[in-house]
């Protein structure tokens, strides 16, 4: 197992995409938060502060508005590409055979990949959010406290979301063994497919009365993980609580992980 971790640790650090994706995450994450914090500062300095406007604002700024529950985390979606590449490069460039002759335990390689990518994503997501919060403090310290207990809670949940998303992307890539297909799917699913499903539920008479099940759509549920604005009615109420969202989204990730492990053991390299 130690050998597999050593292998994956060198692998992830010696590929250029790791660094440009990490840099892109920091730039985009901190950049969006900076713009958002500056805009709020401008608004507050000209029109004054309404106490009702600052609820959840700190969490919103550090998560690039993902804490609004309306959009997925852009930072986590960029980092998920690291997960796609972790398996995608193995199959696209024929590296898998070299990997499995260097490491003759498929289980060790599989576990090491998920752990190392998960740790990398967690650290980068955390650092991005802390830096984003630090920039927000510069602009907004006169109006609100950015790093509240709620903000730290959301930071923790967003890190968990990022890791689950990266693992889900990895499992999907491992299952399909196609980097291009996985890349396309991981963006189309939340941005298009789930909205199409919602539209069907609104347009089709038989489904119109059952729109409450839409809260179980995986990426809709994932948005609830960091949502600080909605008021959930129980774990699996409508909307789902952060725990409910974690269970639904994490459950999908777990199913794909189990399938990925099982097929990786059985398939030819």
């Amino acid at each position, binding site marked *: 197992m130690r*050998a*597999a971790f*050593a*292998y994956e*640790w*060198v*692998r992830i650090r*010696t*590929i*250029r*995409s790791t660094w440009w994706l990490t840099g892109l995450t920091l730039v985009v994450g901190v950049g969006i938060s900076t713009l958002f914090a500056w805009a709020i500062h401008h608004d507050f300095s000209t029109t004054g502060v309404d106490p009702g406007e600052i609820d959840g604002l700190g969490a919103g700024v550090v998560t690039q508005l993902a804490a609004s529950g309306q959009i997925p985390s852009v930072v986590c979606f960029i980092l998920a590409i690291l997960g796609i590449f972790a398996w995608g*490069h193995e199959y696209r*460039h*024929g*590296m898998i*055979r*070299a990997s*499995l*002759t*260097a*490491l*003759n*335990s498929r289980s060790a390689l599989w576990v090491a990949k998920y752990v190392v990518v998960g740790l990398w994503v967690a650290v980068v997501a955390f650092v991005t959010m802390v830096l984003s919060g630090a920039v927000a403090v510069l602009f907004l310290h006169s109006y609100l406290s950015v790093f509240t207990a709620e903000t730290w809670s959301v930071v923790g949940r967003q890190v968990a979301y990022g890791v689950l998303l990266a693992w889900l992307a990895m499992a999907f890539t491992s299952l399909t063994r196609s980097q291009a297909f996985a890349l396309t799917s991981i963006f189309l699913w939340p941005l298009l497919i789930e909205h199409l499903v919602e539209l069907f539920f609104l347009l089709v008479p038989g489904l119109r009365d059952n729109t409450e099940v839409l809260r179980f759509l995986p990426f809709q549920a994932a948005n609830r993980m960091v949502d600080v604005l909605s008021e959930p009615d129980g774990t699996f109420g409508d909307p789902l609580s952060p725990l409910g969202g974690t269970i639904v989204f994490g459950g999908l990730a777990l199913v794909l992980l189990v399938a990925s492990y099982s097929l990786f053991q*059985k*398939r*030819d*390299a």
Partner: protein
Amino acid sequence: MATIAARGLGKSFGGKPAVTDLSFDVQPGSVTGFLGPNGAGKSTTMRLMLGLDNGAGHTTFDGRRFAELAHPMRHVGALLEAKPFHPTRKARSHLRMLAAANAIPRSRVDEVLTLVGLTEVAKAKPKGFSMGMGQRLGLAAALLGDPHTLILDEPANGLDPQGIQWMRLLLRSLAAEGRSIFVSSHLLSEMALMADHLVVIGKGRLIATGPVAEFVNSAQPSAVVVRTPDAAVLAGVLAAEGAQVEAGEPGVLMVRGLTADAVGDLAFEHRVRLHELSTRAATLEEAFLERTAGVEEFQASGVAAAVVSDGSGPTAGGSPS
């Protein structure tokens, strides 16, 4: 040093057998060539040996399966792909990654890069490497753990003549150190120079295994080449003595079943003038073509695919004889 023992290897793709009940041994201290027509199952066999493909049978390296080896690259080095690396990971980083998985010191990375002649491009991205440079990097990876066994699939692909000679000498020297070298190649002339033993397969089944000389001699008897202005007369005399006589270019006879001495004596007795009398040994290529005739996976049609070696040798068709 390790003996490779492959036993009952088998693999099917979509119900079509690719390798069937294949067993053979590779002895230490020798280069064993792995031959077979395209699609015969050579690459599949090598992947089965290393547990990369799931299939029947097993392979042991000094009694232990590949999956049981701690730090496998220290025991078995393998080159299975033409370019088994990420195109933008530097050559040295690629080897460092493999070394990390096998507790191999970093200094060994530079050693193997020097050994394969890639020191100058150690910090270069392999996306710009030629096929030959890619093969050298793959070979560096295989040698990284200083293994007692090497399994190499077409390592000479893409190498220039100097590179092929270099590889031959390298593999011969590694075998002389007592290592087991198992190498597939389509370059039969190269294999004839490099290999001590052969494993020959066709359609996934074993055709022959043993020393190269034994394989060559078993397939094609030597011939006596006679050049004479009285070819018709001599052909009749030789045929009457029970020899197999084949006419080549005008005035040239290929004679099998009689020694050069016997042919010379008969010509003298019948006052036939000779311009040439020589013995031509069968080649590995001729033996290979003869023994694998009819077991090619992919056969040409519509064009006479006959191959005539040096213009006078036996022919082997593109279709089974």
